[in-house]
């Protein structure tokens, strides 16, 4: 929709009229995948200024954190970034376990890694399908959802949910995995590896895709740092920042995997990082299944009513979109005094205004898609 009042005409020094106008992208728009609005001042097809307007699905998750117990807040953590629910629950239970000094059994930590990495692959597959849909290719989405379905079936069998898992509990897991899950996951790894090779020859090497992404929307290392961009965005700018390596948590130090980085900083770089991350996640899952220890999946003597010692506690995890951190401030009661959720999509989108300046509108949409936004993750 063009806002008439904001149309501005000025005469440039060489006498030609230069007209800018405002268009609203969203809040309901197929290219924004959720209720995000971007107010764009345009000069023809070029962006003068693109200001994201957030908050359309704000639910005040942090207030909800202040009026219920730690265990009662747990289901909320699956509903912030709904595509990466495992890692978000991990961040929250991790913070509580850190404060309560709970020892999580090794088997539970291994299963957390397996399920988090499966969740990362399923999240990247949604991004892959949806991103290519933005760029005009419909078919890849069908392939992506075909593979993702297998992950959802596996996770559904052990968690009871297909999206909002809430599978991790304070001190361990809701239940143990079974032989069927282990066999199903091994089968999935065997199927997924050739599929990723096919994705490469089918899509990644496609000349039309490469022309849409290479050199489009460059983001520098320094811009990532100034805006706090993390995840595949900072790694696509050549910085090997990954919470799993830099602030190791859970059982991640026990596995051999690399952090893929690409130096270019363009949309193609972010694309390539995510494609390689799926390969690495498969490696991690395979190792975790090989070394899976026996034992319980729940810490002993987790108090039914949990009171954390007064103080503040942080726990960061590497979610599919980047650094997710929970800060809990406790005053010693059973209800948190403050729960802060630091979400990666907010920081990743905050650089969009600066990065999109002067870009063609369709290129800016490629840039936005390469940021892999989940709107409830921004709005919370």
């Amino acid at each position: 929709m063009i806002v008439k009042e904001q149309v501005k005409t000025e005469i440039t020094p060489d006498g030609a009229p230069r007209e800018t106008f405002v268009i609203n992208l969203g809040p309901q728009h197929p290219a924004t995948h959720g209720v995000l609005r971007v107010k764009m001042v345009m000069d023809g097809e070029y962006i003068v200024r693109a200001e994201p307007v957030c908050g359309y699905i704000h639910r005040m998750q942090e207030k909800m954190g202040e009026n219920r117990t730690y265990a009662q807040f747990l289901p909320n953590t699956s509903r912030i970034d709904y595509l990466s629910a495992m890692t978000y629950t991990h961040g929250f239970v991790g913070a509580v376990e850190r404060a309560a000094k709970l020892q999580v059994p090794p088997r539970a930590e291994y299963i957390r890694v397996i399920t988090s990495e499966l969740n990362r692959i399923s999240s990247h597959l949604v991004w892959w399908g949806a991103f290519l849909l933005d760029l005009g290719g419909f078919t890849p989405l069908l392939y992506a959802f075909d593979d993702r379905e297998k992950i959802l079936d596996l996770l559904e069998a052990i968690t009871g949910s297909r999206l909002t898992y809430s599978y991790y509990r304070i001190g361990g897991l809701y239940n143990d995995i079974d032989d069927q899950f282990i066999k199903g996951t091994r089968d999935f790894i065997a199927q997924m590896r050739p599929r990723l090779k096919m994705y490469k020859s089918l899509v990644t090497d496609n000349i039309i895709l490469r022309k849409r992404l290479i050199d489009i929307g460059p983001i520098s290392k320094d811009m990532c740092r100034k805006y706090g961009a993390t995840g595949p965005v900072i790694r696509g700018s050549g910085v090997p920042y990954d919470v799993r390596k830099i602030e190791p948590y859970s059982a991640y130090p026990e596995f051999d995997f690399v952090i893929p980085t690409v130096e270019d900083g363009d949309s193609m770089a972010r694309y390539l990082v995510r494609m390689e991350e799926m390969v690495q996640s498969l490696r991690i899952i395979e190792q975790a299944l090989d070394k899976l220890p026996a034992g319980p999946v729940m810490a002993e003597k987790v108090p039914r009513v949990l009171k954390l010692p007064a103080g503040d506690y942080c726990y960061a995890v590497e979610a599919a979109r980047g650094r997710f951190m929970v800060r809990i401030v406790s005053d010693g009661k059973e209800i948190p005094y403050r729960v802060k959720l630091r979400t990666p999509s907010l920081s990743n989108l905050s650089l969009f205004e600066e990065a999109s300046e002067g870009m063609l509108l369709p290129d800016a949409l490629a840039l936005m898609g390469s940021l892999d936004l989940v709107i409830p993750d921004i709005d919370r």
Partner: protein
Amino acid sequence: MNADNPLAHLPIPFQAVDYAAKGYHLDATVPPDQVVSAAAQLDKEGLALDTITGVDWMAQGQMEVVYDYFHPAKALRVVLRTRIPRDNPELPTIRKVFPGADWHERETHDFFGIRFLGHPNLTPFLLPEDANYHPLRKDFTT
């Protein structure tokens, strides 16, 4: 060089913290007029802005503003805090140092009513555009 505090050469009163217990390495409380210079020093050290938030300490009549930083290349999580009076919660913005602070400060203003002086657009970010309430203040009632 202090092993516990790799930023010991900065004039910020950092305390080393047990990472395993707290989830960060360094913690400092500074007066509100020093948050900008502290941000500039951490910027020079190559740290990245993690997030900004508030905590309402109603019983003490204070608001705490918490600045989180992380280092993109090494395990170094830095927490910088400041306290301001609850009845006049004002402090300078750091968005000139870290442009990413723009949204975090707007969000903190939404939730706590903390005013970041010098911020050009302290309008509701996540709350509705006509919101005149601050839901994370402890005396907030619906």
